[in-house]
């Protein structure tokens, strides 16, 4: 009777696992124009870098920033920063990204009436949600 399986099957199994991984990666990975690598709320931006990232901001500071860093950026595209106070959309900022990598930010001026829980939703051009940042504005 002719033997169907080779004497040492391990290389063959490894080959199939590698093949499976390649296929899986190709199927699940969505074609994205830009990859978000960093998103933080901060008190300021200096030298294209977030200064004092935090989740609590005092309104006495005057403003708060939402910083997002994309690397790589395959082609020129745009993203959205949507600012919500509680669950109410306050404003939307459309930001353009350019290759090869790009950092962008949006900010709001702080007033007494802005105290409370906030969130910023960062979404891609196709409206897919990339990340949600939650923070609070306090005294």
């Amino acid at each position: 009777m002719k033997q169907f399986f080779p004497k040492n099957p391990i290389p063959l199994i490894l080959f199939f696992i590698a093949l499976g991984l390649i296929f899986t990666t190709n199927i699940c990975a969505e074609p994205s124009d830009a990859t978000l690598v960093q998103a933080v709320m901060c008190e300021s931006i200096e030298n294209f870098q977030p200064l004092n990232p935090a989740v609590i901001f005092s309104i006495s500071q005057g403003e708060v920033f939402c910083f997002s860093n994309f690397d790589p950026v395959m082609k020129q595209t745009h993203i959205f920063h949507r600012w919500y106070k509680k669950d109410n959309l306050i404003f939307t900022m459309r930001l353009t990204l350019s290759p090869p990598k790009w950092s962008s930010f949006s900010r709001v001026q702080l007033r007494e009436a802005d105290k409370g829980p906030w969130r910023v939703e960062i979404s891609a051009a196709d409206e897919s949600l990339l990340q949600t940042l939650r923070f609070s504005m306090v005294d």
Partner: protein
Amino acid sequence: MEALLYLFSGFRWQDGLDILLNTYILFRLYVLFRGTNVIQALLTICVLWAVSQAAVSLGLIITNWAMQGIITVAALIIIIVFRNEISSVLQTKSLKSFFWGIPRYQFNTPLNIIIESVFELARKKIGALIVLPLKQSLDSVVQGGIPIQSKLSQEMLVSVFWPGSPLHDGAAVIQGKQITRAGVILPLSKSKDLPSFFGTRHRAASGLAELTDALVLVVSEERGEITLFKENQTHTIHNRLALGKLLQADAGDDSTSKGIRRQTIELVAAGVICLVCFTGIWLSFSKGMETLATQEVPVEFINPDQRMEIISSSASRVKLLISGARPLINAIKPEQINIKLNLSQSVVGSNKLTITRENILLPPGIRLKSIEPSELDITLDTLVEKELPVQPQWSGKLPKGLVMTEATASPSTVQITGGGLALRDIATIFTEQISLDTLTESGTIRVALVLTPASLRLKKKDPIQINYLISKRPSLF
């Protein structure tokens, strides 16, 4: 006929029971107190009350005030003056006779024994004073006496008055077939028209006959003469036949059909009068005191779809304008009025429900005039589950020089059950306010969630923990 039907419109079985119960109470009071002056005094008070009511309707303020005062005082006086009659009715009657029995006057009194006894006493010239009470009670008029309650016999009656007997002074009272008391002291007559040969015994007999309807027989000790006193009349008795006739006329055997019929007619008439009185009182309460009232009643929603929930209602309470007799209106308890709205035909979203008379349950005798509001806007929603992120809600101010770099909730999401419409616009569940003022270093804090609207429910009521990282603010230099 129509007027009669209108008068008795809204007549409930409770009203019938009410009237019959009170009629019976009044009838029993009449039966128990008949023959006493209490009834006459009560009738007088009734007349005064009628005058007082007439004065009210005519607007005679002072007359009404005076009548009210007189009635109050008269009621007090009745209790004081007739305390003996009242206590004798309450004490001496058995429970059966109190609630049910009907005492009849001089029932089966053996008159022949009395006649023979009296003539024997007269023949032997033994002084005697015998009282036969009729309708009126003697309790408030006579004094003293020893209760005997012995069976009436010729020998017994003669022995009571036998000279030397402890009870021969005073009168013997005979009721029915019994000598009830002996040695009773009767009030003396103050009349100046009595013959000069009448002694104390005759004056006492006359005194009692003047004050009550009792028959009083006197046997003269000196002359052996028999005298019957009845009201203001005096009859000298010469033979047994004459005495028999006189006694038979008033204290005869009432067990005869004529006597029973007479007493039955009297009791039936009394019963009818009591019934008419209380029917009139009921009519005056139910029709004469018709009043309007407003009741605020909560609305009860029935037969809701189990998958639905009431999100909002334009009103949870409805004002009902009702009318009815004032006592019935005043006696209404909140749980006696119900408004039930059927939600079986309602759909998700806004529903307009009309409140009709069929939705309202009122106590008997109460009529509905108006409903406000007569229409309710109800918003229904289906129950759904939604997983929502938890976000801490900070307040106050961090101490100077500190910065909170991270705050995460554990668990980070919670499962919420609530109306689909209510949950549609909710993307986050917030914690209660967490004060920053006392936080100086990283740590964990346990908090509660704030569910708005209140109809939302947590699927698992596990505690929520907030883990936070606090660091020193980097120096600028």
